[in-house]
């Protein structure tokens, strides 16, 4: 077997080792921890490149593109539970993306976190995260994937709550973990169900894996009690896990709150990698999602994939709407991430693995670019996150501005030269030809319009116009920014090199990556499906591609124009003035600013129910069960009291009376035998006399 396949485990193991070593390191060994983390990540990146090259080589030869390595883990009964890892195009692409983006963000963090007292711990957690995420990517077993998936959740929890002294961060971390765990439990049930039906959790195992033909046929043939195929039920349960992790409606509420974590964390975990793990999971189990019993091979029409599509499309629009009315630079990006993840899901649902994954990869680059840019802005503005109090940063932070603008155009889908355009277009095109319904296409288009709009709004607020940074002290409702040391209004400054260089590299990628998946040269699509890509300029003319491209171009320009119309025409005057959209539609704006009141709704329903249930359980224990026990014990006590009373008032007096009689008799008898010889003799004498008298008297008669 090929060396890289056999040793693929090294890619996650290196960061895991780094995490373990730096966990044992003292807080002051900052340089040690950082270089360990970056070094291990660099090595993993090199190995990933090697793996990628190998996958490329294999797919070029047209051989079997999936290579696996399985090993036994534990035994129950006569069977071994096996785990394993695999190398296929999907894995190799994800490996390169995660290690590359991760490496850049690690480097960026050395600048961003330079003054943090828990610097060492930060790199420990980051490395652990990278290890778990890479574990998810290489798993060839749903169980191993689930285990790494949970560890990813743990590290996300640790990093969101990294500034644990902030109550908001601690609460956000808890919320993130529990919300995703709701999905994970459904995932767990789906997994044990799959295990019981397929008899294995290995994805690929020479024809016997659970994603291979024979197992899928069996799953499709099984029907459950509600008439659904077992494959559909399992697929939906697994999808619930992805909904939690990827912040899809209705479990999206944790992701915006997760922005309480340090910005590099938001970039790495909550934009580029972890949240995309849900999308990756669906791509990985795609054969299961698409399994159907019919003879026609109409793709994307299974119930499971329809659900994926609808959830994705709704999320894409829902989150984009909320993003329009937010003021926190990171929260806007967070809602944007939710919305883009919805796109990816929709892409998977309507177009297959390649369509969804292409957007995942391009999004990973431009969204981490945007987050790191936002971090640079926050850093430059002395921990200010409210876009209303920024403005005019273009002249203070030219590099940040240029790279941020690149990311913004890529996210908006600006035509031809930005990667977001190509990947989003592929999704829209697939949605347009989807046979079930056209509604997802319209929702996607609306989402694209909103994306262009809110990103334009953000650019105008942050970088253009005049600086409003000094307004922060005049604001009556200053948001909790707990950095009192920055009380003097200072001018913004550009960030250090360790932060700007990653920005520039990512900006380059945000542009160039688009060209690996154009309709003329669909290399990405071909690579994932194990075919050879050919350059063919007529690809643009096929099946309605050009009209979709044109319409989405128009949509993007409309969005940009609307943004300019509302925010660009006249400069934003002051930080506390109402938003331009607020002036137009105050009620809608408030609904959006309050995120459709989803949090409040959950608070009033699920969380209240949960609390109520816990109090009910406690009350049950204290009153009902314990009450029953006490009742029994009081009954026993009552009986014993009764017994004692009977003793005291009935048995004892009678007994005492009897005893008394006996005592009196005994006392008399005691006098008879008091041990004095003369008494006995006297008695004997008397008796003798009486006897003599008696004999005489009887003898006389």
């Amino acid at each position, binding site marked *: 077997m090929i060396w890289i396949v056999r040793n693929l485990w090294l890619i996650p193991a290196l960061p895991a080792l780094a995490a373990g070593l730096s966990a044992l390191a003292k807080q002051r060994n900052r340089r040690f921890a950082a270089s360990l983390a970056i070094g291990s990540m660099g090595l993993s990146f090199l190995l990933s490149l090697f793996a990628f090259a190998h996958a490329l080589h294999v797919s070029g030869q047209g051989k079997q593109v999936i290579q696996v390595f399985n090993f036994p883990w*534990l*035994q129950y*009964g006569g069977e071994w539970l096996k785990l394993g890892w695999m190398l296929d195009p999907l894995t190799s692409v994800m490996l390169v993306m995660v290690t590359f983006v991760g490496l850049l963000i690690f480097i960026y963090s050395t600048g961003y976190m330079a003054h943090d007292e828990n610097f060492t711990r930060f790199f420990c957690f980051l490395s652990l995260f990278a290890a778990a995420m890479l574990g998810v990517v290489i798993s060839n077993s749903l169980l191993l994937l689930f285990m790494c998936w949970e560890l990813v959740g*743990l590290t996300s929890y640790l990093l969101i709550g990294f500034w644990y002294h902030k109550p908001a961060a601690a609460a956000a971390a808890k919320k993130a973990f529990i919300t995703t*765990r709701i999905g994970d439990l459904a995932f767990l049930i789906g997994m044990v169900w799959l295990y*019981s039906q397929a008899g294995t959790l290995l994805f690929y195992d020479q024809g016997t894996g659970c994603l291979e033909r024979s197992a899928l046929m069996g799953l499709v043939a099984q029907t459950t009690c509600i008439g659904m195929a077992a494959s559909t039920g399992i697929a939906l349960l697994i999808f619930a896990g992805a909904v939690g992790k990827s912040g899809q409606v209705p479990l999206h509420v944790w992701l915006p709150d997760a922005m309480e974590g340090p910005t590099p964390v938001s970039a790495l975990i909550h934009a580029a990698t972890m949240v995309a793990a849900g999308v990756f999971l669906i791509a990985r189990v795609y054969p299961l999602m698409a399994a159907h019993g019919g003879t026609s091979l109409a793709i994307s029409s299974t119930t499971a994939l329809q659900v994926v599509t609808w959830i994705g499309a709704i999320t894409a629009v829902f989150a984009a709407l909320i993003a329009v009315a937010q003021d926190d630079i990171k929260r806007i990006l967070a809602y944007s991430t939710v919305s883009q993840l919805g796109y990816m899901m929709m892409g998977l649902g309507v177009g297959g693995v390649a369509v969804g994954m292409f957007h995942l990869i391009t999004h990973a680059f431009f969204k981490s670019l945007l987050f790191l840019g936002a971090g640079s802005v926050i850093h430059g503005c002395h921990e200010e996150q409210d876009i209303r109090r920024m403005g005019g940063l273009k002249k203070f932070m030219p590099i940040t501005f240029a790279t941020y603008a690149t990311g913004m155009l890529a996210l908006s889908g600006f035509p031809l030269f930005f990667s977001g355009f190509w990947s989003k277009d592929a999704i829209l095109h697939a949605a347009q030809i989807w046979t079930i319904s056209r509604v997802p296409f319209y929702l996607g288009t609306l989402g694209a319009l909103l994306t262009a709009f809110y990103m334009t709004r953000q650019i105008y607020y942050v970088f253009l116009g005049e600086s409003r940074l000094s307004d922060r002290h005049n604001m009556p409702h200053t948001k909790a920014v707990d950095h009192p040391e920055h009380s003097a209004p200072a001018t913004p400054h550009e960030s250090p090199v360790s932060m700007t260089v990653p920005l520039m590299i990512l900006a380059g990628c945000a542009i160039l990556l688009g060209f690996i998946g154009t309709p003329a040269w669909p290399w990405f699509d071909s690579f994932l499906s194990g075919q050879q890509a050919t350059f063919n300029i007529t690809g643009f003319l096929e099946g309605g591609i050009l009209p979709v491209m044109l319409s989405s171009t128009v949509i993007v320009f409309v969005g940009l124009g609307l943004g300019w119309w509302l925010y660009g025409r006249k400069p934003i005057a002051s930080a506390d003035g109402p938003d331009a959209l607020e002036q137009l539609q105050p009620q809608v704006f408030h609904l959006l600013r309050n995120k459709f009141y989803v949090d409040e709704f959950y608070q009033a329903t699920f969380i209240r129910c949960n609390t109520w249930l816990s*109090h009910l359980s406690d009350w049950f224990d204290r009153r009902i069960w314990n009450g029953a026990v006490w009742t029994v014990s009081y009954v026993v006590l009552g009986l014993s009291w009764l017994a004692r009373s009977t003793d005291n008032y009935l048995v004892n007096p009678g007994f005492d009376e009897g005893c008394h009689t006996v005592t009196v008799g005994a006392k008399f008898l005691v006098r008879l035998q008091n041990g004095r010889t003369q008494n006995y003799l006297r008695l004997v004498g008397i008796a003798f006399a009486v006897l003599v008298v008696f004999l005489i008297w009887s003898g006389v008669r």
Partner: protein
Amino acid sequence: MNLFPSISCLTIVPLLGAIAVLALGTKSTKLARGLALAFALIALAITLTVWHRFNPASGGLQFEEVHAWIPVLGVQYHIGIDGLGLLMLLLSAIIAPMAMAASWQIQQRAPLYFSLILMLEAGLFGTFTALNFFHWFLFWELSIIPAFFLIRLWGGSQRATAATQFFLYTMVGSVTLLLAFLAIFLCTGKFDFMDLAELARNGQLLPAFTALGAWHHFTVEKISMVLCFGVFLGFAVKVPLVPFHTWLPATYAEAPTGTTMLLTGTMSKMGLYGFLRILLPIFYTQLRWLQTPLLWMAVATIVLSAYAAMAQKDLKRIFAYSSINHLGYCMLGIFSILKFTGNDPALATEKTAAMNGVFLQMFNHGLTAATLFWLVALLEKRSGGARGLNDFGGLRKVAPVFCGVMGIALFSSMGLPGLNGFVGEFLIFKGVFPLAAWPASVAVLGLLATAIFVLTILQRVFSGPLQEKWSQMSDLTLGERLALLPVITLMFVLGLCPQLVLGVINSTAMQMVQQLRF
């Protein structure tokens, strides 16, 4: 085969230790606890050699010792272990020194305290090895008495009530157990568990109960149900199963921490062990009639106790309820195995998976729960007795290592993959789902509630702003770190390499499942 009676030896060592420590009188606390720890470590060493010599390929009894004792009553001195017994011996041998380490600072009547712990350990060893009812019941009771005195003499402010409640509850269970076994003896003339299981397997047990048939014109089935219930109650109280559990939170909260560790780590396993070794092989028919209500009882145990834990404000009470919750998974696994599956080999494998999961969960819960109570004790030592959920805040700043260790133990209890708690729970769910899909699906709620209260603890105690009064709190000392190191290491090792344990118990689990399959 075995010339050297290792198992008898194992039981005698802590008993000798208890006597030796007590014989020292009240002269030297230091000497008493040192000596007690030495005896506990000797017992651990013996257990490890037994573990080493144990043949994992055989599912039957090993290290058997049989001697006549009271032949007239069918009482033999019959001891032996299989994979389950060995695992429980190891657990007891690990928890006992841990409990001693956690009680290190006890000054008041220390020799008596440590001697009672050793006596308790002897009781545990005896219970987990005895195979004759008479002999087994002696040790079963022997373990309750030291526990009672440990709670009564060294407990918290409510100790009198707690100790009485604990004693009465377990006594009621013991009495029904004893009566049931006397009735069985009257019918069969046998006290030996293995013989009785054999009778049950051959279908001779039920007819034997006709001897009691004249009794109020009960049918044989009804009589057998009554007897089954008597035995069931004895174990259900011990585990405990909702609704026989209300003694537990009070007892765990009031007992001195070392005792709580033994109670949760090992004594709760006595109940489960009873289910597996005694109730299941002898009364499987009767239990099978009741399978559905029993399954839902286990689900209620899992869900209600997890939710009740969420409502508690005292860390010890939270962990007490969490303990009930974890053992609920074991009960779920055990009851699901009762399902009649005919000769379907696939379902038999699922049963074996669940059985393995139950064994593993018993061991892992013992480790993790004992560690959690230990950590609460360390916290109490620093806070002067405060252990409320809302008494602290931001402790991670002053005690990062303590927070890290507590975090590991808490996540292990939550069943995070990579730590020991996960594998057992996974195997249980994996086995139970095909056998009883709905109970398994509802039981998942318990996992959610566990996550909620675990994270609430981390949030309230360790995160947020540091309270002024705790700003001088010290982190774990070097000694404490070293004492905790082995068990934390074990959590990781078993999480990554569960085969270390599974390899030893798998044959036993297989055999147990096979014997229930007809």
